């Protein structure tokens, strides 16, 4: 590996690479000093191109470099400079700060740009981009000459543009501005704007390049804003779907709906804890979905049979009673799990950012929640349309007495429907555990939103719930940059109030006899 790097460097004619032995160790030892001293030493080692520096800097970045009282540096049980075995007793970790960390990224970039590993080269290109230094031009030109991976080339061109812009040569600067403007990257825009103050003569060219990038970015930004709106919409959809069944279809004002969502989140926590350390642990989240459905559905069935069925046709009493049940559930969870939040960890596939086509960056957890929301919606629609239970349910909703005379056990259908709605709320809780805090108050934050969506979309209409949730999510996110988070929400609520004045039945009003009941 070392040899490979050396030969490569020599072939590329960047020769005077290795520092003299005592110069190298003198610089390296300063890695154990104060932050300012560290940053300087890191920069010097990075510029030297000396392959001996790579393991040292890597160890420093990973927090594996330790320091003895006499100033000697160790990696594990070996001297960091010579590799000779050493006694590590009494060694303390060498700490770094952000300034050193930034210098390390540049230095590691300069050393690793020749790495055979494409992932390392990509990181290296991004590291060198940070330097904004004309010194890197030979290195970057050489790297570009041999690079074949398009994605790395893009980043190298970006770094090269930044380095050219930092040079003293007017023509080179213009070339840099040109290539940065053509790249369309947000990072290129930043580099250009940074350079603007120091290059008054080039301000016009820079502005043109920035405008060019902005045109390309406009689409991307709109896409990202839309994604944020859809993401909020999918959260609202998930929270409201259960309510669309219990309130929308059955007409039960269920104030405990939020608590079912909360119980779903706690079920996720329990499933995760139960599977901890077993081979199934990475699958805790998918397994929590059916579990949460069952738990909350059973609870919902018990609640319907035990309490709600005695109050059909008395909405005020139902409201008060379910409100009370909600408080009891909240307090019960507080007694069992404590008032402190519980941590539900995210699996690796739900962390980080994903690049969609068109360079639209979206966060993985939000993306999965959108997918999950749509899946749950399809499931609910399918269950209502294609199953025997769905048929019974529709029959009972349309005309209870006729349904009963046709031999449908309406009481059982009521219980199942309520259980179904509660189960959906539980599944929503699984998703919310990924983006919100799992606390006994989790549900209270969503109950108002859920009613808002169902009423806005039109009571009794699943399509209305979908359109309602997505509209509210997108409108909210469109308003947010102008009005701020708090006012955007207020504006949405005011908008809904006005809308309901004009259309009391919501977006998708049911027509026909069912609507008159």
């Amino acid at each position, binding site marked *: 590996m070392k040899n490979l790097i050396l030969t490569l460097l020599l072939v590329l004619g960047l020769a005077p690479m290795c520092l003299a032995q005592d110069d190298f160790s003198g610089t390296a030892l300063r890695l154990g000093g104060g932050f300012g001293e560290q940053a300087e030493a890191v920069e010097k080692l990075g510029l030297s191109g000396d392959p001996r520096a790579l393991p040292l800097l890597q160890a420093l970045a990973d927090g594996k470099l330790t320091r003895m009282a006499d100033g000697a540096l160790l990696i594990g049980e070996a001297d960091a400079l010579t590799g000779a075995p050493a006694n590590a007793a009494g060694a303390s970790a060498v700490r770094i700060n952000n*300034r050193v960390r930034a210098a390390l990224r540049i230095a590691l970039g300069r050393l690793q740009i020749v790495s055979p590993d494409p992932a390392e080269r990509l990181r290296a290109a991004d590291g060198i981009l940070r330097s904004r230094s004309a010194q890197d031009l030979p290195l970057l030109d050489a790297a570009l000459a041999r690079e074949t991976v398009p994605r790395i080339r893009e980043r190298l061109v970006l770094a090269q543009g930044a380095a050219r812009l930092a040079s003293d040569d007017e023509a080179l600067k213009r070339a840099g501005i040109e290539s940065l403007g053509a790249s369309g990257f947000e990072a290129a825009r930043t580099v250009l704007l940074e350079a603007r103050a120091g290059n008054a003569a080039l301000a016009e060219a820079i502005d043109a390049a920035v405008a060019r990038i902005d045109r390309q970015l406009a689409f991307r930004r709109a896409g990202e804003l839309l994604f944020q709106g859809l993401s909020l919409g999918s959260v609202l959809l998930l929270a409201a779907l259960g309510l669309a069944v219990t309130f929308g279809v059955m007409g039960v004002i269920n104030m405990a709906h939020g608590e079912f969502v909360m119980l779903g989140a706690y079920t996720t926590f329990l499933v995760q804890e139960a599977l901890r350390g077993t081979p199934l642990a990475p699958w805790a989240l998918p397994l929590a979905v059916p579990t949460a459905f069952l738990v909350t559905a059973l609870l919902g069935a018990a609640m319907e049979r035990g309490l709600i069925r005695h109050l059909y046709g008395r909405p005020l009493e139902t409201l008060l009673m379910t409100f009370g049940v909600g408080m009891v559930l909240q307090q019960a969870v*507080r007694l069992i799990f404590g008032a402190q*939040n519980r941590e539900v960890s995210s699996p690796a596939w739900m962390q980080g950012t994903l690049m969609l086509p068109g360079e639209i960056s979206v966060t993985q957890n939000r993306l999965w929640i959108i997918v999950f929301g749509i899946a749950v919606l399809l499931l609910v629609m399918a269950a209502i349309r294609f199953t025997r239970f769905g048929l019974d349910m529709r029959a009972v909703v349309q005309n209870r007495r006729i349904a009963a005379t046709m031999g449908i056990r309406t009481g059982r259908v009521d219980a199942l429907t309520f259980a179904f709605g509660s189960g959906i709320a539980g599944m929503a809780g699984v998703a919310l555990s990924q983006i919100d805090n799992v606390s006994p108050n989790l549900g209270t934050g969503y109950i108002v939103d859920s009613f808002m969506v169902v009423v806005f979309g039109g009571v009794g209409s699943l399509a209305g719930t979908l359109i309602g949730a997505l509209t509210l999510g997108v409108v909210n996110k469109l308003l947010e940059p102008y009005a701020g988070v708090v006012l955007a929400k207020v504006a949405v609520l005011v908008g809904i109030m006005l809308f309901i004045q004009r259309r009391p039945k919501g977006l998708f009003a049911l027509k026909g006899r069912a609507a008159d009941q």
Partner: protein
Amino acid sequence: MTDILNHRLTRRAALLGMGAALATPAIHGASAQGAPIKVGVLHSLSGTMAISETALRDTVLMMVEGINSRGGLLGRRVEAVVVDPASNWPLFAEKARELLQVAKVDVTFGCWTSVSRKSVLPVFEELNGLLFYPVQYEGEEQSRNVFYTGAAPNQQAIPAVEYLMSKDGGEARRIALLGTDYVYPRTTNRILRAFLNSKGIADADIMEEYTPFGHSDWQGIVARVKRFAGEGKRTAIVSTINGDANVPFYRELGNQGIKAEDIPSVAFSVGEEELAGIDTKPLVGHLAAWNYFMSVNSPANTEFKAQWQAFIKNPRRVTNDPMEATLVGFKMWAQAVAKAGTTAVDPVREAMYGQKVDAPCGYTLEMHRNHHLSKPVMIGEVMENGQFNIVWKTQGPIIAENWSPFIPENANRRR
């Protein structure tokens, strides 16, 4: 009210609290002469602030246990009266009244958010109670009934922003002020904006956003901060986000790949305890400004950590700045009571001035006549293990300026 998964001490505290609420006389009193000295504990044990405040209740209980094991105070037992104001600001005032009038406590340790302190302030002033407030705050207040053992803005916010603008801090010239929507973030940011303006940072280079308590959808704000940072000047985030909204906020920072070397964030209300519930790997290098970190190397801190972990029966539990401020306040109060020879509020107040405590932060802290402590300022970077690496600190304790010179209305105020 209580956490049955916790051990019996918590339950005992809850029982005590309930006992007080029902105004039943204390059950014990065998050893010490006279009625016990009552210490009120007014911290949210549920709701959005429980993540931060529960540990403060436990700290007071630990101090009470410690003082009783050394024979009590003035030869009397000390007894904690715990109530739960449930992150509900009006309830704070009700519970404060209950502590003062029904339980008749001699002193109260409590509150985290400024809105809760503002809520109880009239009660303590009306009934001449004594409150020890252990959290950094926005200043602009000085009640004779409150001793402030947390930092004033010049002991936390301003040095932190100065650090962000320094070479080591990344030379930020553009600042995003993110906060929860209540009095502390808004006042602090008002002070910071005036300070930044005085340092030549224009309003165009300052972004300010507020969110409700418990906010969880940070994607839009973090994306806007990213864009704000891309305008050609080094950018940093100053966070006055409080409570459990921090968990989704940091998760979003991690998910959107904002690294501390690119856009460092400094938080004023996030310490070791809040980080205990988060995966800290993506957060390495983000900053917090406090007057104490668990990683401080001092004999008093070693003792504090050992006492805490033994009390809570968990060798991995962390300590944090407001806990230290609670400990310092409790020790000072005990010293003042011993000096005054009584727990009556007025003599104790007089005795408080000039009290000194050898604090875990490694310095001797003094209570000044402005009811604030002199404190050292420290800035720490988050490490992978959820602890802080102290990257900057003041030479020694600095005196609180609770009336900020950056607020124009204070110009005529005598300092």
